[in-house]
Each structure stands twice: as structure tokens, then as C-alpha cells.
């Protein structure tokens, strides 16, 4: 029996391949996700572990907290004098200090800052004595020596056309400095992604990074025979409360966890979620393809039964076939994942996430998970078709045109389908709307509800196939004439088959529609807030808009003729009210640039903050039971604390604002922050936005290569750009599911063409041209995919309505973006046309005579 199953499979290679493609893509996504995130992970590991090579222990600054809002916090520096004390310790063979920064901008030949996307622009120092600790390797030239020299990274040098001996603009604080490139270096064996790095000698670095007489790290090598624990205990007594000593390995791990751990696991879960969607769609496609093949193989099963095969044997022959397809598809997907990882990375680079990469990592876990998941999903999808095969009666072997007898459960079918749908809707509503439940159970209810919803809609979809075909097929009929009419009728011939083919596409389109509506909601809420708040003519930010820029850039505008109302919003972090948060700071003239509605206090509040005041939003005040005069203790990264009192409360727009929960004065902020940075600087000009005024601001910022002068409209646009990038990323990831469902439509059509061979022969015989045959198949494909789109959009709109309603307190409104919906419909038509290419060609190529005699 096993032989029969396997030989049968070998005899239907094309069909087996078509079935396998549905699983290959989902598995490739799983494998690609693991390969990519493992490769990034290994890239970070290499960078951080190399960073502490030869260092038995490392002394670094210790911030009061490591991260705030997911961003790593720069630890405080330590006095250089500590190095001398360390060097004198008995267990120390070698100790060397370094200063570092992750905002050392390099300026390209065009005078603009070399963009790193969101990646850091690293700068660090080397000393001759510290060379054993240097993580980088010169590829050409010499290490920097003196205030005029710099070593830059190989990727930047190559990309921007810099050579040893050239001069390059380097800027950390204040105006850019032109330095001579003394050498070019690399991190051996790893790409640093979008990041750039520049290496200076220690005094130059200290001066450029505004860290005179300070160090950020001391690397120590122990004398032979001195174990790290002994060295640690020798060093500890010398350290202050803002310094900490760790082994090199521990420091590398900590650096990686604070700086890279978050993004890697975020990417992994995000991508795996989309892999899950693709596999879910794939399961639909496989179940449908197998169901069709089984209907077509009835005579074969019946013959097996007449020859004495039991029902169980028939079922196993189908399951074995699915198992083989699952395993082969998973193996193919596993390796396709290697290529997909590169594609995914290109996608991330395109939206500005360019992460380090080591050599490609193909872990055992990747292999095991990909193969298991792919095979199991295929097996699960085969259960229902396999059970159907067992119902083929032996008599079908000798009777022309037998149909499958209905299952004894069939009479409960409609009731079951409806029940599933009702339960699904109930669960999603509970998940989205029941405010009494905890977040965990709510999300669980929502997740299961959505999965069930897809299953439920697909189970019920066969009932709406006829009316939908009548509506969607009408244009086909008008445009296509006879082929159009036949196509429409063909689509309704087997409603269950059409419904489940369309359902696969429904899932992808439901999610795309949901993302579009939800994204439009977030965007409009955000736009509302931005429009309401920002009234200044101009804004200055860093070139990438979101990395804070040194406060000097803003100060350069103050007092310039023709530039008024310069008001800066600083950004940093602090621990307050039990959590590590962002902290913003403002200047007394804030209301010249930002319009705020005060519920307690007035526009005078920013001016009254002084050294002991803060303001907060109405909601934050309510959530934390604060009232005017309530004290809050702030702890800065340096560990220093101060207490501030509530002096004003404002009504923050639902779409958010540039302010953190608590906002203090820049006066107080600068007192506790060694190198303050601005989130943005706003300014007004007489006469508003004009070319002359823009030129005036540009001139004022000339020395700051990283400063970007924007008009109010440009600024709003720049602020909103990331939302669009994220939406585009989500669309790209959902495209994979749509491709899987496209494969599903191809499968169904190819099998249908095969099934209708004789009929196609007759149509050709009575005068249908090849072109008309192709049109007929194409229209059927389009009608099917439009059905999927229609169902998907209904489900997507439903989900979006629920979720936006649940989040209405965040100002997310529900609005259907009409134009995008039109695009999606067009996309569905394109999917239909593409899916029909192969089946239509096959149908048109049929030899009329052979087709007519086809059994």
C-alpha cells in the first residue's frame, strides 16, 4: 500500500510540486527568519566580544539604569586618573583606557552627514599601549596620531570614495573638524551594517567627544596566574558608585543585551508571526489541493477498494503522500530560507534598519523547527481530504461519473460552520472590547478569535459563491462575452472548491485591509496631533529626524538677526515614579513654537518650571494621582537625584506629543546632563516661511553638518514618514501570504483544467478559439481572486472596526481609505491574471482530438 502511495505520488509530480510550493514559502519564511536573526545576532556577538578581546576585566561607567523606553542609556564617564591607580595594582599586566561615542558623524564629500539610518555612528580612541585591546584591524595606512588624524571604517571609505591621505569632516560636538585619514580599518569577519566608525588618538577623542580628562572604559589584562575573580576584587575598592568592573565576557554580553537584544528578538517575533500567517494560508491551499486531487482520483481509490484495500489503508495512502510532500516541501523551504534571509535583510535596509551581520548562521534549531513545522502543518491539512478519500465506495470503479457520498456528519455541516463563525465573532469581540479582562486573556481571545474567524468565513464562504459570482462576474460577462459567461458559471460549479481557493487569498487581503485601515487611523491621529501642536515656522532636527542633536546646534540660532522665538526641546532619560522613562525639557518661550491647551496653569508654566518644576499631561496626572505641588523624584543616568513639583497640567492630543510623561526646564536638565541634546529646536521668522528665511537658518546651521532645517510642512512630513515605512514593511511581509494564495489559485485552476479536458476539447471543436479558452480561464481566475478580495476586505474592515474602537482612547479613528481599497481590488485582479497564466496556457494548448477522447 505504501508503494502504491509513493508510486502514485511519483506519477503526479507536477501536482505534488504545486502542492509543495504552498508549504515551501511558509517554511522558507521560518528558516529565513532564523537565519537572518541568527546572522545578525552573531554579527553583534562578534562585534561586542571583539570589543573586549584580550581584556580579562573591563571597567565601565554604571548608569542608574541601562535602558529607558527600550533605548540604551549612555553610561557616565570616569576620571582618567583612575587608570593610573589601576595600572599600579599588583595583578595588572596591562591596562588601557578609551573614550567612545555613538554620535561621531562623518561628513561625505558632498558636505552632508553620511547617513547611518538608525544605526550608530561610532567613535572611539586608541592608544599605543592599548593596541592589544583594539577590536579593529587596519586594512591600510597607520593608526591615528595627533589632533589631525583619523582612521575610518572600510565600508564608509569604499562607499564614499575616501583614501588614506584624504581629509574628511568629523563632527561630534560643535562645528565639524577636517581631519586627515591616516588609515582604514575593519572589524574582521563581520559587517557592521549601516553603522560607521572612526578612530582617533585619545587626546583628540577626549576633546572632540567633550570628555576632557575622562574615560568611558578601561580594559585590563591580568598578570599570568591571576584569575579574574582575584583581579575583580583588587579593582572594586578603587571604584566609585558610577563605575563597575566586569569580566570581558560579561561586559560583552551586557553590551549586547542592552544595545541589540531588543531589536533581534523584536525582528524574530515579527517575522515569525508573518511566517505563521503564510503557513496558515499554505495549510488552506494544501487542504484544498488535496481535496481536488482526491475527487479526481475517485476511480483509483475505488479500484484499490475493489482489490481489497480497507478504508484505513486508503486514508493512510493519502496521509503518506502528504507526509512526503510535507517533508520535501520543508526541506526545499529550509534552503530557500537562506535566500529569503538576504531578501528580508534588503527589505529592512530599505526602511532604514541596517544591522550588523556575521557570516551566515544555519543553526540546528533552524533545521529542526523548519522541518517539523512544515511537515506537521502539511499533515494537519491532509487530514480532512484523507478522511474524504475513505468514503469512496468500491462501485465507483465501474460506474461513470460517480460522486462522493456525503459524510454522515454532513447534515450537521451548515450548523457547524455557522457555530464556528459565531464563536469566532464572539471571541474577537470579547478580545477587542471586553475591558474587564486582563491583557493576556484578551489577546489570547483575540488571536484565537481571528484564526477561527478565517476558518469560519471559509467554511461559510461556499454559500455566498453564487451571489458573489453573479456580481463579480458581471463585468467579465460584459467584457468577455461567451468566455466570460462560461468563466463565471465555472466558478460556481463547485462552490466549495471556489470558496476554499478564494479563502486562502481572503486571509492575506483581510490582514492587508486591516493594516491599511489601522495605519490610516494611527496616521490621522498622529497628523491631528502634529497639526494641533506645531505652530513654529521652522524646525531643526538631526538629519535622520529622530536621533537627538547636540544642543549647540540650537544655540547657534539664538540671537541671529531675523530668527526669533528659538525654543529647544531637550531629550534624555530619567527614572521616576517607579520606571525608567524618557525625560524632556523645555524653555520658557515654548508656547511660541508649540501650542498647548493647559487644564491647570497657562502658557506661563514653561517659564515657571525653574529648577524644581515639571508639567505633565492630564492623563498621566490622573493615572499617577498627582495634583499641583505633588513632588516627584527624578534620578538621572549618572545616579544623581533631584525632586521636582507639578506646576502645570496640559491636555495632550490623543495622537501623542514630543513631550515625555514629565517635562522639566532645560535649566534643570542641563545641570544633570553632561552633553545635552535636543529632540528638536523650533524657531519663527518674520514673514513666516520664505526662501530668504530658509537660507538664513541654513547659514546659521552651516557648521553643524548633522542639523536639518525644515519648514513646518517638511517637518510634519518627516515626522510622519516612519509610519509609512512601517506600513510598507508590513505590506511587503503580507505579500508572501498573498503569493501563497496565488499558488493556491494556480493549483485549483491547473487541476480544474485537467478535470475538464474533454469539455475543453468540445468547446474547441464547436468553435472556441485558443484565445477565448485563455480568456475563459483568466476570467475564472479573476472572479475567484475577487471573491477572496471581497471576503477578505469584509473581514479586514470588521477587525479594523473592532480594534480601532478598542483603541479609540488613543485617538485612532476608524476610516476606510477608499483609494487603497481600490488598489487592493486592482491587486486582486492582477493576482487573478498572474495565477491564470500557466493554467490558461495549458488549457489553450490542449490537442482538440486528444482532449475529446480523454477519459
Amino acid at each position: 500500500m505504501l508503494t502504491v502511495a509513493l508510486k502514485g505520488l511519483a506519477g503526479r509530480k507536477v501536482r505534488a510540486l504545486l502542492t509543495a510550493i504552498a508549504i515551501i514559502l511558509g517554511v522558507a519564511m521560518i528558516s529565513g527568519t532564523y537565519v537572518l536573526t541568527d546572522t545578525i545576532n552573531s554579527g553583534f556577538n562578534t562585534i561586542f566580544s571583539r570589543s573586549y578581546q584580550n581584556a580579562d576585566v573591563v571597567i565601565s561607567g554604571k548608569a542608574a539604569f541601562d535602558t529607558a523606553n527600550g533605548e540604551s542609556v549612555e553610561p557616565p564617564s570616569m576620571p582618567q586618573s583612575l587608570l593610573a591607580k589601576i595600572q599600579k595594582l599588583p595583578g595588572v599586566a596591562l591596562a588601557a583606557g578609551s573614550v567612545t561615542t555613538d554620535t561621531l558623524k562623518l561628513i561625505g564629500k558632498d558636505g552632508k552627514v553620511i547617513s547611518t539610518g538608525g544605526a550608530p555612528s561610532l567613535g572611539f580612541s586608541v592608544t599605543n599601549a592599548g593596541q592589544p585591546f583594539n577590536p579593529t584591524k587596519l586594512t591600510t595606512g597607520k593608526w591615528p596620531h595627533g589632533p589631525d588624524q583619523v582612521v575610518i571604517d572600510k565600508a564608509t571609505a569604499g562607499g564614499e570614495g575616501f583614501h588614506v591621505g584624504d581629509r574628511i569632516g568629523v563632527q561630534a560636538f560643535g562645528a565639524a573638524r577636517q581631519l586627515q585619514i591616516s588609515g582604514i580599518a575593519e572589524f574582521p569577519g563581520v559587517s557592521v551594517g549601516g553603522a560607521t566608525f572612526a578612530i582617533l588618538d585619545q587626546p583628540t577623542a577626549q576633546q572632540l567627544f567633550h570628555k576632557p580628562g575622562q574615560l568611558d572604559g578601561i580594559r585590563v589584562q591580568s598578570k599570568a596566574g591571576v584569575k579574574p575573580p582575584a583581579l575583580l576584587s583588587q579593582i572594586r575598592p578603587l571604584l566609585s558608585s558610577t563605575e563597575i568592573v566586569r569580566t570581558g565576557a560579561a561586559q560583552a554580553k551586557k553590551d549586547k543585551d542592552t544595545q541589540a537584544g531588543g531589536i533581534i528578538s523584536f525582528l524574530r517575533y515579527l517575522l515569525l508571526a508573518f511566517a505563521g500567517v503564510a503557513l496558515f494560508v499554505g495549510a488552506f491551499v494544501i487542504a484544498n489541493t488535496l481535496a481536488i486531487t482526491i475527487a479526481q482520483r475517485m476511480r483509483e481509490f475505488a479500484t484499490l477498494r475493489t482489490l481489497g484495500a480497507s478504508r484505513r489503508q486508503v486514508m493512510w495512502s493519502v496521509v503518506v503522500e502528504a507526509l512526503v510532500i510535507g517533508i520535501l516541501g520543508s526541506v526545499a523551504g529550509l534552503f530557500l530560507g537562506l535566500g529569503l534571509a538576504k531578501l528580508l535583510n534588503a527589505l529592512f535596509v530599505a526602511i532604514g534598519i541596517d544591522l550588523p551581520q556575521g557570516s551566515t548562521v544555519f543553526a540546528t534549531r533552524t533545521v529542526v523547527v523548519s522541518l517539523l513545522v512544515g511537515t506537521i502543518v502539511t499533515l494537519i491539512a491532509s487530514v480532512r481530504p484523507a478522511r474524504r478519500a475513505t468514503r469512496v465506495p468500491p462501485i465507483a470503479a465501474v460506474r461513470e461519473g460517480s460522486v462522493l457520498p456525503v459524510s454522515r456528519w454532513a447534515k450537521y455541516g451548515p450548523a457547524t460552520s455557522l457555530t464556528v463563525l459565531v464563536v469566532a465573532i464572539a471571541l474577537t469581540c470579547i478580545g477587542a472590547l471586553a475591558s474587564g479582562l486582563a491583557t493576556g486573556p484578551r489577546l489570547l481571545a483575540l488571536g484565537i478569535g481571528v484564526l477561527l474567524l478565517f476558518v469560519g468565513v471559509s467554511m461559510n464562504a461556499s454559500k455566498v459563491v453564487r451571489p458573489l459570482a453573479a456580481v463579480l462576474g458581471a463585468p467579465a460577462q460584459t467584457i468577455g462575452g461567451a468566455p466570460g459567461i462560461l468563466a463565471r458559471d465555472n466558478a460556481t460549479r463547485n462552490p466549495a472548491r471556489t470558496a476554499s481557493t478564494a479563502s486562502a487569498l481572503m486571509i492575506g487581503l483581510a490582514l492587508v485591509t486591516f493594516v491599511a485601515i489601522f495605519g490610516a487611523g494611527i496616521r490621522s491621529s498622529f497628523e491631528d496631533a502634529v497639526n494641533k501642536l506645531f505652530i513654529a515656522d521652522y524646525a531643526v532636527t538631526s538629519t535622520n529626524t529622530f536621533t537627538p542633536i547636540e544642543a549647540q546646534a540650537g544655540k547657534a540660532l539664538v540671537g541671529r538677526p531675523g530668527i526669533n522665538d528659538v525654543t529647544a526641546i531637550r531629550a534624555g532619560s530619567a527614572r521616576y515614579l517607579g520606571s525608567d522613562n524618557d525625560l524632556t525639557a523645555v524653555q520658557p518661550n515654548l508656547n511660541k513654537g508649540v501650542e498647548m491647551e493647559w487644564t491647570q496653569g497657562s502658557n506661563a508654566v514653561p517659564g515657571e518650571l525653574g529648577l524644581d518644576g515639571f508639567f505633565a499631561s492630564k492623563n498621566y496626572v490622573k493615572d499617577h494621582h498627582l495634583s499641583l505641588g505633588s513632588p516627584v523624584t527624578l534620578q538621572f543616568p549618572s545616579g544623581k537625584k533631584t525632586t521636582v513639583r507639578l506646576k502645570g497640567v496640559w491636555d495632550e492630543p490623543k495622537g501623542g506629543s514630543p513631550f515625555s510623561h514629565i517635562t522639566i526646564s532645560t535649566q534643570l536638565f542641563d545641570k544633570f546632563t553632561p552633553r545635552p541634546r535636543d529632540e528638536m529646536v523650533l524657531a519663527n521668522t518674520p514673514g513666516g516661511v520664505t526662501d530668504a528665511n530658509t537660507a538664513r537658518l541654513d547659514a546659521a546651521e552651516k557648521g553643524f553638518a548633522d542639523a536639518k532645517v525644515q519648514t513646518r510642512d517638511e517637518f510634519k512630513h518627516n515626522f510622519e514618514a516612519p509610519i509609512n515605512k512601517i506600513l510598507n514593511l508590513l505590506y511587503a511581509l503580507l505579500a508572501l501570504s498573498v503569493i501563497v494564495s496565488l499558488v493556491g489559485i494556480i493549483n485549483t485552476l491547473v487541476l480544474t483544467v485537467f478535470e475538464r479536458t474533454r469539455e475543453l476539447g468540445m468547446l474547441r471543436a464547436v468553435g472556441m478559439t485558443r484565445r477565448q479558452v485563455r480568456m475563459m480561464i483568466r476570467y475564472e481566475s479573476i472572479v475567484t481572486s475577487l471573491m477572496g478580495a471581497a471576503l477578505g476586505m469584509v473581514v479586514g474592515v470588521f477587525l479594523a472596526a473592532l480594534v480601532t474602537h478598542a483603541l479609540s482612547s488613543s485617538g485612532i479613528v476608524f476610516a476606510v481609505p477608499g483609494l487603497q481599497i481600490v488598489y487592493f481590488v486592482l491587486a486582486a485582479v492582477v493576482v487573478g491574471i498572474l495565477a491564470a497564466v500557466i493554467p490558461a496556457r495549458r488549457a489553450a494548448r490542449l490537442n482538440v482530438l486528444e482532449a475529446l477522447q480523454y477519459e
Partner: protein
Amino acid sequence: MEAATVPAVDAAERAPAAVVAAHDITRRYGEGDTAVEALRGVTLDVQQGKLTAVMGPSGSGKSTLMHIMAALDRPTSGTVWIAGTQLGGLSDTQITKLRRKHIGFVFQFFNLLPMLTAEENVLLPLTIAGEKPDEAWREDLLKKVGLTDRRTHRPAELSGGQQQRVAIARALVSRPTVVFADEPTGNLDSATSAEILELMRDSVDSLGQTTVMVTHDPRAAAIADRILFLDDGLIVRDMPRAEPGEVIAAMDELTQN
């Protein structure tokens, strides 16, 4: 230019009454040693307004001949004319359009579209050609084949005989130059077969529909105006209208030789 006109003139001179003509047709399947010669030089004129039956034992080449004359297959050598057009050198689309206009088919297994009603199946050739049926003609035709009250039924709701009636009406609807019927009674019981044969005879008599029927059923052949006997790829006998007994005798003679 010259080459194109010569056969047409030739056809007109040779057989003015022939609506379908075949000249020295051969058809070989396969290559080299394994090649099978299905037709070995058949020349034939189909007379207008007559019912011609083609008979012969299995493998005699009768189906191949019909396929070639109906433009479903191409001869290895020789020429076929349909309504004055020589088929050699026509593209697939040209041949399809020619079939659409000049040829009707009746198949052994009916080959109706299951999702269309009886009436829609009948009108299918016109629908494909993008033509509107003539109201009166449609009603006449449905009445003639006795389906007036079954027009909205789908094939699954019709008996075998009724399905073949639909198929015959479908073959007639475009008033083709010639109808080819391939074992039209091959899948029917004898009582139903008789009804179908009567219907076919009637379409020739009342409509003047030129018809070619391939069959191995002597009773079917007996309704024909002319019976051609094929054996081993050649026409071995050309018989005028005959009784079933005579046909059986002729067949016996053929198989004994």
C-alpha cells in the same frame, strides 16, 4: 497567389456539389518501423443535403477520416476542402473560426456543459461566436428535438436520449455546412437509439442538413442516403441507401475477406 487559387478552381471543377471534399488523404501515426498507416489514400465528396454514413470495423480508419474532414486533425498528405476553402496552411485560429461557421458536432458521450441549461447548451456555439440566436429558429429547433419543456433543465436532470437531443440541437443551431456525428448512438439503449436516428434523418429531410455519421451500428447506417465502407485505411465500398440486413451482409463480407 497562384498556388492559393489553383486548388479552389480544381475543387470547383471536380465536384461542384461537394460541400466537403477530401482528395487522396493519408494519415500516418508515429515514425519509422512503428508507424501506423490509418488512412492510405482516401478520396471522397460529401454530397450536399444528404446523410452519409461511414462504416467499418475497429481500426479501419473511419474515425480518423471523420476527424480530418471535420478539421480536428490534419492529414499526413492530401487535401481537404470545407465549403470551398482548402484547410492546408490555415492557422489554428482560422481553422477554429471555420469550424465555428461550417461544422457541427454530435459526440458519443454528448459532452454537454454541466453548469448550463439545455437551452444554453444548445445556443453555446452561437454564444462562443458572439452571435444572437434567431428567436423563431431557436423555438423551431427546440421543438424539433422535443425539448421545449425541458429547456431550463441541466444535463444531470436529463436522460441519455434527452442529452443527445440537446447535443444534436447544438450541432444544428448555427446551420453549419455539415454536421459530423461520431457514434451518436454508441452510448444509448436501442429504443433511444431509434429515436435519435429518426431525429437525425429528419434534420436531413426537413432542413436539408448535410450530415456525416461515423458508426458501427448497421441500423444507424441504414438511415443514410449513402454508406461508405472503410477497411484498412481505404474506401472499399460505396453503397446507396440500404436496409439493415444488406448493411450487415456487406459488413460480414468485409470482415471475412
